[in-house]
């Protein structure tokens, strides 16, 4: 166990943190834009957003490989203009994480915004508040419990992402070896102790995340549901 390198822990945290930030902003933005609008093609767009939830991760990874590979539409553009190579790099792991965790954030955000009483936002508008102010002072704080749940789930999903990451980022020790990857290849090469160590770490992380979320939600619900005093 002395030769365990801790890079998988830091890499996993880095990948999950960056992907969660991107997913949170994009999920909240799209959910808020789409939730009270109806237009042609909306259900197609929403199905597209949620597709990674039902597809095998390898299929998502394959799609990303086609798109971000050296000869892919996006991959060749990124390489030519910005000298960024996505395949076999930690950026690939971030992109895979973003794609698989986005549906969780999007769904949570849609549910949170849908459950808001539209009269609260309308009341703010009639009092002269701009759409920006309505969002930051009414919609966002009232939707926050649901948004936080989405954020935590996305982080956990990003932390545990394996299939699509393997397809896009591969397994390069010290470069793309996230915890799930380290577990898989430790088992493959017969290093059961190392695998057990990483399994313990990821179970502890997942468990404490859910414990904290449950605690926070209960505390929050109690605060809003207090009896008249």
């Amino acid at each position: 166990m002395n030769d365990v390198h801790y890079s998988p822990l830091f890499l996993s945290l880095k990948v999950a943190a960056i992907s969660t930030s991107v997913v949170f902003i994009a999920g909240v933005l799209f959910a808020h834009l789409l939730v009270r609008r109806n237009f042609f093609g909306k259900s197609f767009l929403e199905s597209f957003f949620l597709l990674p939830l039902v597809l095998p991760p390898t299929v998502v990874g394959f799609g990303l490989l086609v798109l971000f590979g050296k000869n892919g539409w996006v991959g060749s553009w990124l390489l030519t203009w910005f000298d960024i190579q996505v395949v076999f790099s930690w950026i690939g792991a971030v992109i895979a994480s973003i794609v698989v965790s986005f549906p969780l954030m999007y769904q949570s955000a849609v549910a949170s915004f849908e459950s808001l009483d539209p009269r609260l936002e309308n009341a703010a508008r009639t009092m002269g508040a701009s759409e920006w102010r309505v969002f930051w002072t009414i919609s966002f704080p009232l939707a926050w419990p649901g948004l936080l749940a989405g954020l935590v789930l996305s982080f956990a999903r990003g932390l545990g992402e394996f299939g699509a990451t393997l397809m896009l980022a591969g397994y390069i020790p010290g470069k793309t070896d996230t915890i799930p990857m380290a577990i898989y290849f430790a088992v493959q090469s017969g290093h059961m102790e190392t695998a057990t160590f990483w399994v313990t770490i990821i179970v502890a992380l997942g468990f404490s995340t859910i414990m904290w979320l449950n605690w926070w939600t209960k505390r929050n619900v109690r605060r809003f549901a207090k009896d008249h005093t």
Partner: protein
Amino acid sequence: MLKVQIRKKLSHFTLDVSWEMDNEILVLFGPSGSGKTTILNSMAGLTHPDSGFITLNGRAFFHTQHKPLSPQKRNIGYLFQDYALFPHMTVEKNIHYGVKKKAANHSSFRIEQLLSVLGIGHLLKKYPHQISGGEKQRVALARALATEPSFLLLDEPLSALDQETRIECQNELLRLHQIWRIPFIIVTHDMNEAEKLGDTILFLEKGKIIQTVNHPPKKWPADH
């Protein structure tokens, strides 16, 4: 002078109403689904009629040929059914929400006056879930009037209250109208309430005004 002429196709009928009013209390009376709330929402700019106009002292809020004025620019007060108080803000923050920072000094006197007339000064630090139905109604009224609106829309403002509080709040509405002297448009199901509050009552059915009743100027609450 507030002039309204609205035509809007709804799912079961076409809303088609028109009236003119001064700084009086106008009651929209009719069964559920007769288009009352759509009228209020059209006046507030939360929905738009298919055609017609809404003008206040010559200023067009809506006109078929022009882009409608956004709700933010109409300067109206809207008391929603069940009040729509912001649950995550204290009573004080709710009341100050629409007050512009530039006008804060000028408004503070008006808000003090509102708090005193409505007797809600002691509730400022409380949250909406910590106060009673009657208190919520008063807070919502204070919030709607704090922005110094040019007219006030009230969607069944007293329907959630018990009989005693209801009568108390009816008197308060009349008193506030005497002080503020702006057009009040009130939606109600209750005939007694309509007769007590309204200078004019419009009876609505399936989007049409079927009868208009004008009352003589009246009706100072009995206790004043």
